[in-house]
């Protein structure tokens, strides 16, 4: 297994005391933000960026990775004990997990979620270590035209898949692209869409927009909704471990979840949300007791929870090998790479093997830490929700302002932050998804650069995107990604129409 040699090297880096500490900080923070609704991993990483600028990038990325999948663990805890998913990727878990808690099997639900996450996370990390170098060899042949096609694919899938309406997903993406245009054009040095404001010449930093859309927008939105009824926390009774029967019913969903999540994570389809729904449907179909689903079937917890962890690891494949973020958190991590002057892509593996393999190895270690943090301490994490909501949101807004101000020490940035917050509030009120805007903002300028580079190389010949086999194939997939969901919806509406 010579393919695993770099991974062993990575373990050597991840096992240094300082990096172990960063992993611990990351998974702890991640679990906390996963538990708290309204704060997600994307926002947390974005708010930490200004403070981590002077840190060693290896340690910083080990921490960011820990935050990302730690949030998946934490979110399942609140789904099960409170019926309040901390993140979208645990919405499905709440269905049966909360029923299990009500039936007195809360401890078993937490256990199957945590162990399932561990199993799937470990398998997916293994798959990442095996597949990433393969993708790298392939990606080395990519030219500008191919990269542009790849980004176009990301745009179409993110638009088609996220949110309830394709049109609103498109609006979100276009908003992100438009904001990404603000500032000096990199090729010609001309100012675009700056409204004559010199502060906008450098463009609008992704971090400010992300913190505004997520944190400030969420605060404005939550305060505008009156129905803030507090849910009752179901206490974890006793130290009842999973029964033999529950183990027997859990292990297959774990493995299936790992298998479903990883490939979906690698696709530009918004990360861990969709595969969890798929996993739930698969488990329900394969179960001998489909009638138990919705009433506390352990498979309905084991499958989706394994899936979301596996998907998060899958997200790292396109991020590290192609520089292509497929979820909002990955988009912010791409910003982090840029902050350190690193360009994710095939060359990252050659130039920064310590970073890449240290990060991958730390995923294993983080999974072990999370198992320890989450199994015995689940009850403790839930107590985080005892923070009164007024103080929670007051604190979030103070921290968000602090993070953005310390980026450049500019009050003008605070103004941008709050305007972005107003935009995020409006988008939530209008049911427009946020993630496509973030991905558009970060990928837009890169896509434009690759497009212009490709056309410059081809000397103005636009057919270059169709004549190169790689780019033509990717574009065909992009068109399919747009048409297939539309076709499915059209068929559904035809079959559902008479029933209405």
């Amino acid at each position, binding site marked *: 297994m010579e393919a695993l040699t770099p991974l062993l090297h990575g373990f050597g880096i991840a096992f240094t005391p300082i990096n172990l500490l960063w992993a611990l900080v990351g998974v702890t923070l991640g679990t906390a933000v996963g538990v708290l609704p309204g704060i997600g991993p994307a926002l947390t990483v974005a708010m930490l960026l200004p403070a981590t600028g002077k840190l060693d990038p290896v340690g910083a990325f080990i921490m960011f990775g820990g935050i990302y999948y730690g949030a998946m663990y934490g979110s399942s805890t609140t789904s099960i004990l409170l019926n309040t998913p901390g993140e979208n990727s645990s919405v499905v878990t709440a269905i049966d997990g909360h029923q299990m808690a009500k039936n007195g099997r809360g401890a078993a639900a937490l256990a199957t979620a945590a162990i399932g996450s561990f199993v799937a996370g470990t398998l997916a990390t293994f798959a990442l270590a095996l597949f990433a170098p393969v993708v790298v060899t392939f990606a080395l042949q990519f030219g500008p035209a191919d990269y542009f096609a790849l980004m176009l694919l990301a745009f179409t899938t993110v638009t088609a898949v996220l949110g309830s309406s394709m049109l609103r997903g498109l*609006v979100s993406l276009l908003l992100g692209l438009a904001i990404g245009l603000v500032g000096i054009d990199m090729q010609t040095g001309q100012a*675009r869409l700056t409204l004559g404001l010199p502060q906008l010449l450098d463009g609008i930093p992704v971090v400010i927009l992300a913190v505004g859309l997520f944190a400030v927008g969420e605060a404005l939105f939550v305060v505008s909704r*009156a129905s803030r009824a507090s849910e009752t926390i179901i206490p974890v009774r006793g130290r009842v471990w999973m029964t033999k029967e529950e183990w027997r019913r859990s292990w297959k969903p774990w493995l299936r979840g790992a298998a479903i999540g990883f490939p979906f994570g690698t696709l530009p389809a918004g990360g861990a949300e969709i595969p969890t729904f798929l996993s739930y449907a698969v488990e329900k179909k394969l179960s001998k007791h489909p009638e138990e689903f919705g009433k506390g079937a352990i498979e309905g917890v084991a499958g989706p929870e394994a899936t979301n962890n596996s998907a998060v690891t899958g997200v790292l494949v396109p991020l590290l090998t192609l520089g292509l973020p497929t979820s909002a958190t990955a988009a912010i991590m791409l910003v982090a790479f840029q902050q350190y002057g690193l360009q994710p892509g095939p060359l990252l593996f050659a130039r920064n093997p310590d970073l890449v393999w240290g990060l991958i190895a730390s995923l294993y270690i983080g999974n072990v830490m999370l198992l320890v943090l989450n199994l015995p301490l689940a009850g403790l994490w839930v107590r985080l929700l005892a923070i009164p*909501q007024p103080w929670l949101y007051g604190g979030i807004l103070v921290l968000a*302002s602090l993070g953005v101000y310390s980026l450049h020490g500019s009050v003008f940035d605070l103004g941008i932050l*709050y305007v972005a917050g107003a935009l995020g509030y*409006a988008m939530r009120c209008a049911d427009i998804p946020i993630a496509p805007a973030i991905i558009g903002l970060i990928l837009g300028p890169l896509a434009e650069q690759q497009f212009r580079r490709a056309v*410059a190389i081809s*000397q103005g010949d636009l057919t270059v995107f169709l004549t190169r086999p790689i780019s033509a194939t990717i574009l065909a997939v992009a068109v399919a990604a747009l048409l297939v969901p539309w076709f499915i919806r059209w068929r559904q509406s035809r079959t559902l129409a008479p029933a209405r």
Partner: protein
Amino acid sequence: MSDVSDRASSDPAGAGDSASAVALALAVMALGAFVAFDTFTGLTGPGYAQVGPGVFPLIVGAALLLAGLGLLVHSMRGQWRVAWVERDPSADASSAPLRNSVLVAAALTLNVMLFEPLGFIAASAVLFACVSAAFGSRRFVLDALLGIAFAAAIYFVFVHGLGLHLPAGDLWEGVPWRR
């Protein structure tokens, strides 16, 4: 169509109103027009690069215009609405989401204005207390004290620990505890 509007009027909590949706759709179209129009003014040609700086804004602007048009159609058909606030029909009169939203927005505006004159600690305490009040806290003095303690702790760690700059506040010039 009538079925949809009936539901909206009979349900005070509602799923939002179509008028706001129409307004938002028009705003998206206006933004698209601006983005597209901006490219015609003052940008030079592509030169050797073949594709000039105006091409992408034109595409994005045109697409925004079209997408806004789509939103307009959706909103006029009643398929898409916007709910700025949401009242809980069973709640008492003290839950006033609109007032609370305005309070948060005002607190944020205030923070931009006070951040440098008052300094990070005082401005953050004001922000913290106002946001807490908007989220239903009735203990304004306690909130303010907690805000001061929280912001002071952050200030100390950031300025003295990490060596980053945060405004101390021009108003406190000459006060001995200032750094």
